[in-house]
């Protein structure tokens, strides 16, 4: 067995015999966006092998949730994939509702979907900026953050917080929409559509960018399924895996939007899937923003929730892919066992496969388009 300490020792000894160079990318590295640690074996600049070492931000959220009640554990999941915190909460709320057999009022459903899609746009905007920065272009980061800021402000006004909103409660949402919500969202959508063109000029159509992305990190359809990749990563390889389409939850089956797929499976396809997905999210928001039904925003639930004995599984499409929540209940007020099937974990497992044979520069493009959020991987 080849232990981690051994690898670290070798990596730091400056041993370049045999032409192979072992370098540590991370846990503190500008391109890993967090504390991901990759041990990379290089031959010259070509990557021979990548070995991820996780756990630098592992908080054992699954274990923590075992001691929290069904109302409390939802907020912890915001800390997993913090960029789509709201969608994580959604998955948990759905699972608890499935167990409780609670019917969510239509207004709450619409609010949840609206917030989900806003979160998705915000997450993709951040990814777009950060990925451009991985490739050495700093400026798109700020343009992307400007749009994201508008969403954060909308969130702040309605939910009371900007990132970890904890807006979801079993049976609905915590507050009603803020009176300014519709006006602000409409303004944002107009602004978003106007400004998103800038990214085409600055990033998408840029010749350097295209050369860096096209044909890099190709993931075939079979591998995408085998590695359990979901979300934009799998859709770029042509797998139809949008949970909103194949297992519709809330009101997604009544909405009109396309599942974006590409066939190339390379970094550029993953990039395009996310960019086009932002437009689809904007389309969903436009459909709903004027048609929010009146009524309750929260179903009546008991103060202390108890799930019946059994197993419950629910899944949603986060900005990164399929998030599954698997609750094993013994009938008590806390889950007996809870498992989060996080999209990032499976997507990361494909990294070694798709980045081999590329240059170090390619690794940044590949890693950037996998859109890894480290707390989501470690949980």
């Amino acid at each position, binding site marked *: *067995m*080849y*232990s*981690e*300490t051994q690898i670290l020792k070798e990596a730091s000894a400056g041993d370049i015999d045999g032409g192979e160079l072992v370098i540590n990318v991370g846990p503190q590295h500008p391109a890993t966006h967090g504390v991901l640690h990759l041990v990379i074996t290089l031959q010259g600049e070509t990557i021979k092998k990548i070995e*991820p*070492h*996780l*756990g630098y931000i*592992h908080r*054992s959220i*699954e*274990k923590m949730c075992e*001691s929290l009640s069904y109302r409390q554990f939802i907020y912890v999941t915001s800390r997993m994939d913090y960029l789509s915190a709201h969608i994580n909460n959604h998955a948990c709320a759905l699972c608890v509702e*499935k167990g409780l057999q609670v019917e969510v009022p239509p207004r709450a459903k619409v609010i949840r979907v609206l917030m989900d899609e806003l979160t998705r746009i915000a997450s993709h905007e951040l990814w777009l900026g950060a990925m451009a920065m991985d490739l050495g272009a700093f400026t798109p980061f700020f343009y992307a953050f400007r749009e994201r800021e508008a969403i954060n402000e909308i969130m702040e006004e309605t939910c009371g917080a900007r990132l970890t909103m904890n807006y979801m409660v079993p049976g609905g949402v915590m507050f009603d929409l803020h009176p300014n919500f519709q006006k602000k969202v409409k303004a944002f959508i107009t602004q978003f559509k106007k400004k998103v063109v800038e990214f085409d000029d600055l990033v998408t159509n840029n010749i350097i960018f295209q050369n860096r992305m096209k044909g890099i990190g190709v993931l075939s359809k079979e*591998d995408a*399924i*085998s*590695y*359990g990749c*979901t979300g934009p990563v799998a859709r770029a390889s042509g*797998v*139809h*895996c949008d949970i909103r389409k*194949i*297992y519709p939850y809330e009101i997604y089956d009544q909405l009109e939007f396309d599942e974006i797929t590409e066939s190339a499976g390379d970094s550029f396809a993953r990039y395009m899937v996310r960019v086009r997905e932002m437009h689809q999210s904007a389309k969903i928001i436009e459909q709903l923003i004027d048609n929010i039904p009146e009524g309750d925003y929260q179903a009546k639930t008991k103060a202390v929730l108890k799930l019946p004995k*059994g*197993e*419950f*599984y629910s*899944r949603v499409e986060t900005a990164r892919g*399929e998030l*599954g929540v*698997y609750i*094993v209940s013994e009938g008590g007020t806390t889950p*007996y*066992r809870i*498992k989060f*099937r996080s999209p990032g*974990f*499976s997507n*990361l*497992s*494909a990294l070694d*496969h798709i980045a081999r044979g590329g240059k170090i520069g390619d690794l940044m493009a590949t890693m950037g388009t996998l859109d890894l959020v480290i707390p989501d991987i*470690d949980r």
Partner: protein
Amino acid sequence: MTNEDIKQYISGIVPDTVYDETGEWLNANIPPQSWKQLAQALRNSPFSFDYLFCLTCVDWKTHLTMVYHLSSTANRQLTVVVKAKLDRNNPEIDTVSDIWRTAEFHEREVFEMFGVQFKGHPDLRKLILPDDFEGYPMRKDFEDPVNMIRL
């Protein structure tokens, strides 16, 4: 293709399977020895379960249960949950990382969190925890006097 077909198919391979249909999906409780054979068969079956979307373990204090959620990308409505009861003191099961590549990481996670030995796994090392970590933190009787906060 209904649950009955799947049942029939599984029973054809592993005769002593116990089924449980109270939940959302068909649950098949199998003995751990026959898991590898069944996994191979399910993957290549007419149902083509090519998508292992959740792999986890549950500690029932008396025994451990491996839970595999399988689905098919060709027919998304087809889902089967395979469960295998393991001995808690010496948990051992065959790896399926050669059938579904995603299992490689998930099995490593289960290995360090629950101590399940996956026979034939190509690289069964700790993934998340440090190398010198002792104990299996996700087991119910795990106690860490230093880092655990009791509420």
